[in-house]
């Protein structure tokens, strides 16, 4: 199975990296740009369908891949490869 975890900064956390990229986008001629937020896209491939894997993936997303103080995560689990 395949799991995709998307980690994003919480809306209340300033994203200076995103702001810098936003300035570059504006320099490329986009006038209506409202905001840029940078996150992480993490792909996991796991063989088989272990019992309780979904809960384990939630735990991994929460404990390791994101920091709940400053980040949110979205876990997307897909069957097959």
């Amino acid at each position: 199975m395949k799991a995709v975890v998307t980690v994003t900064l919480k809306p209340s956390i300033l994203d200076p990296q995103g702001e810098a990229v936003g300035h570059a986008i504006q320099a490329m001629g986009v006038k209506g740009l409202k905001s840029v937020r940078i996150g992480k896209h993490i792909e996991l491939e796991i063989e088989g369908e272990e019992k309780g894997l979904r809960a384990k993936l939630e735990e991994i997303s929460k404990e390791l891949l994101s920091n709940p103080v400053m980040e949110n995560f979205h876990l997307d689990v897909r069957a097959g490869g």
Partner: protein
Amino acid sequence: MRFAVVQFPGSNCDQDCVHALQVLGQEARLVWHQETKIDPSEGVILPGGFSYGDYLRCGAIARFSPIMGAVKAAAERGQVVVGICNGFQILCEAGLLPGALTRNEGLHFRCETAHVRVETPASRFTSYYGTGEVLKIPIAHGEGCYRASPEILQELEAQQRVLFRYCNVEGQVVPEANPNGSSHNIAGICNAGRNVLGMMPHPERCCEAEMGGVDGRGILLGAAGVLKPI
């Protein structure tokens, strides 16, 4: 006092910490991150550096190192634990201190000498100083912007757990003196038990006159429990 200075792969201030502690008359030993024992009589230092290459987030992987179980147990027993720079980031990731350290607001890696104000002498780490005393301590970090929820910030303030704040040379806590955008100009905090300190500035880099200053001595001597000479 004897200190265990933890070496993670990517730590680079470990030798400096050992040297500074020895200069101050303390014992220090290096402890590899795969070890699992810290003596109940020892203090613990998590030094600066780039543990695990800062992969994922600063400190995110170091917190799973085998030694961290012993560090947690030491903190819970009331032993002194000091996290400097990357060590502060690790303490936050490990949940031994609240909040998180995020990318500097100005995006730049800041390597310079910062002025920090001692907010209260009411901790072993600040007992050498007076309230409002201004210290000159080197900083060197790219992710030192302290963030926590409004509730946590309020709790830290109410319990006088903000020990150091970035200030200007006159000791005024102003936005221009904030090198990284930290909430409330926070440079260092302690836990509720006041035995765990996390700070971004490097006290071990200013313990000898030859190094440009001695303002960090009191922090390490205080951590070691050496009483201030009258």
